[in-house]
């Protein structure tokens, strides 16, 4: 085997320019794949952080039978025993309760249709990123009639801190209900829909407007890592069910986020396939050229007593060297590019496109996803081997006497 490796290594550098070009193309291909993976995963991570931070949370316990998980049409009594278990779960950082419904908000200057979210300010502040977006006033704290709204809605209603607003909604199963609030804080998230359509009030006041004292739309929980969601659901799903609730992942509630993530993952697979195909053809070309140049040598080796498998092994090791060196160089190149854009930030127009729906930073700081990068590098090495299989088996099947006559 040592001789095979030695021969393969020296053969690789017989045409050093061709080998260097092949290794370069493999490394550039892998770097492009890594950049795509890092970009997509960084965007996805930010989308998850923003969507879970601004509204979804990582987990929600909603009443069983809810049809629209984004604005649950059903409320239910607070599931006390389950809530205790949820708070005590080692993966759970914070738990809060919310009630959510659509309504109208009136100011002396006008009215707007809004989404009313009743929250518990103290625990909500540990889950929501809205307090971080406050540009005026404070995040509750002044009294039960405090209201926090976005700057776009404040501008449309022409209200400022301390001024009064009326929130009106249909009380559940009865007539319209309304309550007077005072603007405590104005936030700017950068999302047109949140800044122009969502108001936050305290939970008891929202329950009164909705006519459901003591009831909630859902419990919301924050975890240190979204990847932990399935294990918490596995641990506590049955306890939630025992109290009439469904424990749901943010992926099941934020269908847009899930759809975008799936779409991006599908694009990544297509890009991966294209780049792997290009790299595979490059290696096939290099190995095939090298094989045709050395037909007489293969004949000589076979005449000297090398079994066909020795020839196959030698060509496979050459391809393995090409793929491995290319993958190694690609990991370094891709890592350097990701590190660079992870430090300086990459300006993307995608922030504008997403801003209606979610707050999204226009500058993304790329992060490596080493598990995916290393898997792609390993995939490229496998592609190299597969690409070399054809020429290798062809070389092994050469008629020795004919091969020896080859120039």
């Amino acid at each position, binding site marked *: 085997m040592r001789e095979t490796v030695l021969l393969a290594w020296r053969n690789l550098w017989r045409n050093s320019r061709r080998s260097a070009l092949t290794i370069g193309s493999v490394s550039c291909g892998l770097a492009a794949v890594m950049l795509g993976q890092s970009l997509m995963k960084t965007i996805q991570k930010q989308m998850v952080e923003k969507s879970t931070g601004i509204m979804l949370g990582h987990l929600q316990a909603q009443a069983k039978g809810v049809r629209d998980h984004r604005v649950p049409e059903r409320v239910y009594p607070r599931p006390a025993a389950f809530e205790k278990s949820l708070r005590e779960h080692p993966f759970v950082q914070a738990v809060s309760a919310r009630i959510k419904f659509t309504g109208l908000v009136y100011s002396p200057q006008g009215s707007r249709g809004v989404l009313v979210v009743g929250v518990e300010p103290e625990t909500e502040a540990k889950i929501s990123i809205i307090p971080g977006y406050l540009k005026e006033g404070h995040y509750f704290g002044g009294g039960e009639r405090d209201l926090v709204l976005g700057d776009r809605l404040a501008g449309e209603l022409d209200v400022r801190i301390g001024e009064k607003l009326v929130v009106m909604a249909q009380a559940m199963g009865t007539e319209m209900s309304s309550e007077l609030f005072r603007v405590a804080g104005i936030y700017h998230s950068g999302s047109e829909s949140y800044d122009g359509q969502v108001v936050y009030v305290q939970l008891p006041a929202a329950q009164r407007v909705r006519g459901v004292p003591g009831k909630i739309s859902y419990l919301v929980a924050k975890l240190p890592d979204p990847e932990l969601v399935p294990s918490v659901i596995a641990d506590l799903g049955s306890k939630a069910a025992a109290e009439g609730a469904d424990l749901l992942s943010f992926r099941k509630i934020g269908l847009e986020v899930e759809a975008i993530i799936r779409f991006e993952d599908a694009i990544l697979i297509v890009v991966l396939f294209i780049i792997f195909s290009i790299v595979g053809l490059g290696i096939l070309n290099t190995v095939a050229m090298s094989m045709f140049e050395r037909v007489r*040598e293969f004949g000589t080796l076979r005449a000297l*007593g090398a079994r066909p498998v020795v020839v196959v092994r030698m060509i496979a090791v050459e391809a393995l060297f090409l793929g491995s060196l290319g993958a190694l160089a690609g990991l370094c190149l891709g890592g350097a590019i990701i590190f660079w854009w992870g430090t300086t930030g990459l300006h993307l127009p995608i922030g504008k496109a997403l801003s209606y729906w979610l707050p999204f930073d226009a500058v993304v700081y790329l992060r490596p996803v080493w598990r995916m990068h290393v898997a792609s590098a390993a995939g490229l090495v496998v592609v190299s081997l597969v690409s070399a299989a054809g020429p290798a088996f062809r070389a092994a099947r050469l008629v020795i006497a004919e091969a020896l006559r080859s120039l």
Partner: protein
Amino acid sequence: MSGETLIELKQVSKVYRPKVKAAFSDAAPGVIAIEKLDLAFSKGEFSAIAGPSGSGKSTLLNLIGTIDAPTDGTIAFRGKTVTNLDENALADFRLHQLGFVFQAYNLIPVLTAAENVEYPLALQGVSRAERRARAIEALSWVGLDGLADRRPDLLSGGQQQRVAVARAIVHRPAVVLADEPTANLDSKTAASLLDMMLDLNKKHGITFIFSSHDPTVLSRARRVIHLQDGRLQ
């Protein structure tokens, strides 16, 4: 010379057919390179196969060396038929029983002289230290002491052919087959190479079968087999 029959060819024929589609193969006439040849070689021979170009010398050596298959007939080595062996068994047969010297030397250009000579031993699984010692010894037999670490491109044609001979004998084969080993060498170098092969034959009892059409080369052989149009003359 013990007189033991090493190689025996019975009614061996080789017809080269042009590569055409199967449907037309019967119509393609083909070229008869060897025709119903009966021939035997004994242990310790120093024999030459002579004949003009196209007479079938190389084909005959290829058939004896099992690097080409006869169209008809059988070839036996020490009484055992080798023409029915599979690829791996043939490779093992060549590895242990045969040595080859080619007209164009056919050294592996990325290996040094010693590494080229070691290669058959490496295929046999001989340890590094032993095969290096045996390669150096074989190189000294062919008069190439001190050139073990040179790559083929830094050796003259005569030196390369000597390395090829060292590679052919290093694993102590029963037979060395040499196809026009002096064709690419000047007359002085050719004579020197033949003297060396004859010396190896005498001193170490290695059987040599080589082909040539050069009368001065053929004059050194103890037995000359004349071929004409694939038949013995």
